């Protein structure tokens, strides 16, 4: 039975993705900071059909502990991250570096560890949550966006390396998702539910896709946003 390792397992998108695999009887390794929240997610997945759930409470911002957090797994999902308030950190270089580190350095470190494990297995999928925000730098979220852009480029290269071992590297680029991360944002019709994004991620993992925009229409929105010449349009 599939074993799924999820880093940032208490994020809304990770929980919804895990539900799809739980229904098929997958076993899980769940890693997140808060032990009580992890226990709630673990119980939920068990009721939904997970064959086994192991949890580890750890601060993923601390890359020195990443080696200990690795387990043998066929699917690895890296889902942790934080959306900083860009305006608030504009005058604060240290806070910018922290936010960049948590959204880029930390997932890249985990991906590097997972790559070794998956290479040894000669199969499986490494799925990483990126963002449409990483497709073009914008003043409203350029720290978050640049971190995601770094992650995208890293994964693109890693995909080339792991292809020889039969391992797929998937970058998921969600648009706006209605989750606690976006709780303070004003909602518009382009917002997707975490449940539909979770299902989209499962489908993309199964289809062994390289890059998946969820919902699909963000592929085209992103294309237009990237093509708008900066000379005329300053975001």
């Amino acid at each position, binding site marked *: 039975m599939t074993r799924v390792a999820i880093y940032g397992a208490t994020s809304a998108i990770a929980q919804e993705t895990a539900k799809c695999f739980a229904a098929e009887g997958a076993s899980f390794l769940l890693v997140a900071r*808060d032990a*009580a*929240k992890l*226990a*709630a*997610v673990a*119980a*939920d997945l068990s*009721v*939904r059909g997970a064959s086994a759930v192991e949890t580890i409470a750890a601060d993923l911002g601390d890359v020195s502990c990443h080696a200990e957090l690795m387990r043998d797994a066929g699917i690895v999902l890296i889902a942790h991250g934080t959306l900083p308030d860009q305006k608030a950190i504009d005058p604060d270089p240290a806070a910018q570096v922290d936010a960049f580190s948590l959204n880029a350095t930390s997932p890249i470190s985990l991906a590097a560890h997972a790559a070794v494990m998956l290479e040894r297995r000669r199969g499986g999928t490494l799925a990483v949550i990126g963002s449409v925000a990483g497709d073009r730098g914008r003043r409203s979220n350029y720290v978050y966006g640049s971190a995601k852009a770094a992650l995208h480029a890293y994964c693109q290269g890693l995909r080339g390396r792991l292809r020889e071992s039969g391992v797929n590297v998937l970058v998921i680029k969600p648009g706006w998702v*209605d989750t*606690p991360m976006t*709780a303070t944002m004003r*909602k518009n019709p382009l917002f997707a539910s975490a449940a539909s994004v979770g299902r989209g991620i499962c489908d993309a993992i199964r289809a062994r896709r390289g890059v998946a925009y969820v919902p699909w229409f963000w592929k085209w929105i992103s294309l237009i946003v990237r093509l708008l010449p900066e000379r005329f349009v300053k975001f």
Partner: protein
Amino acid sequence: MRYESWGRWIPSEPARVIPLQWTSSIPRFDAESSVLAYGMGRSYGDVCLNNGSTLLDTRGLSRFRRLDDDGILECEAGATLEDILRLVVPRGWFVPVTPGTKFVTLGGCIANDVHGKNHHRAGTFGRYVRSFQLLRSDGSLVRCSRDENVELYRATIGGLGLTGLVVTVELQLRRIASPMMRVEQLPFHTIDEFESISRASDAYDYTVAWFDCFGGRAARGIFFRGNHEAEWSAAVPAAGPAASRRRFPVGLFAPFLVPLTVRAFNALYYHAQKKSAPRAVHYEPFFYPLDRLANWNALYGRHGFMQYQCVIPHEAGLEPVKAILDRTASSRRSSFLTVIKTFGDIESPGLLSFPRPGTTVCLDFAAGETSLLTMLEGFDDVVEEARGSVYPAKDSRMSPKRFRTFFPQWEQLAALADPKFSSTFWRRVTS
């Protein structure tokens, strides 16, 4: 995210909304002027509103905790019946009682002590709530069941969300052998006929009747009765036909809808449904025909609509029921779905539970006119005379005096209510 009530007639104006995500870290709310849990917003009137104050959005609290071999499900109170059915039907379980939509949270089912088509056999939802954890504004988490904190247990069931925040629930499910129902439909033309069919239908777990108020002298209705299939038929999808979440283009059709379309709808509905020998039907269309249209409440247009549901005790006979239906018909007002059902005599543990032995009638009307309020006020007279009651979950207009007459236990609830919990409804009927 919108925080309306289903009738959309009363404007919803919460000053603040606190989304809840984790049972282990519910933010303190003792600094708020008052709070009220808000789930799916499927109650029709103002029991789910807290205008000018704070709503606690419980939709993030929807995790399962345990499902054991005896069909006891423990989960967070924001889980909906849809979440639960999707999990348990493939395992041979069903919710013990369900209202006409599956898009309701457990917390809402408890707060309104909801009933369903099986009330005559199973009683209300509250009977199957083995226990729950109630968070009070002083920070205490109180476990309530038939054996622990019984007073709070009884006050919370049907307690309109006023006793605190229900955090987790232990629910007793019922066994089913198949997701299919064996359903039969019988046409009838008078309320007396309805009554005799209803009396002869005790062997059916689920009974309900739809009635066309426009019929006038040619009144007509259809009595539905059914049971869960006793055996699993192969190749039946547990999930049912694609649960469409189509949204209705509001405003586009609404102006033409009332009353012309309602009339056409009723005529069509009658002819589509009237003839039927017992046949197998999936549980989804049987229990939740309206869930297929995500926002059918928009059919009544921008001004919204009102539902009126009352119960007339058996002792009062059928005359009050006829009087209400006749007055509705002669008012030429549209009622999309007039529903009639005979309640049984199984008692609920709930203090302020609405159902009681008798006949319940449910009508809906496009909102907006004051003459409608006058007519419903007149219905209240009939109900009071018959010593019946009006359902708070659907109400947005009954007077404080009526409420106190229909629910003389209200003072007991007021005494047990959490001082920080309130609602637009509660302020209205206790003012």
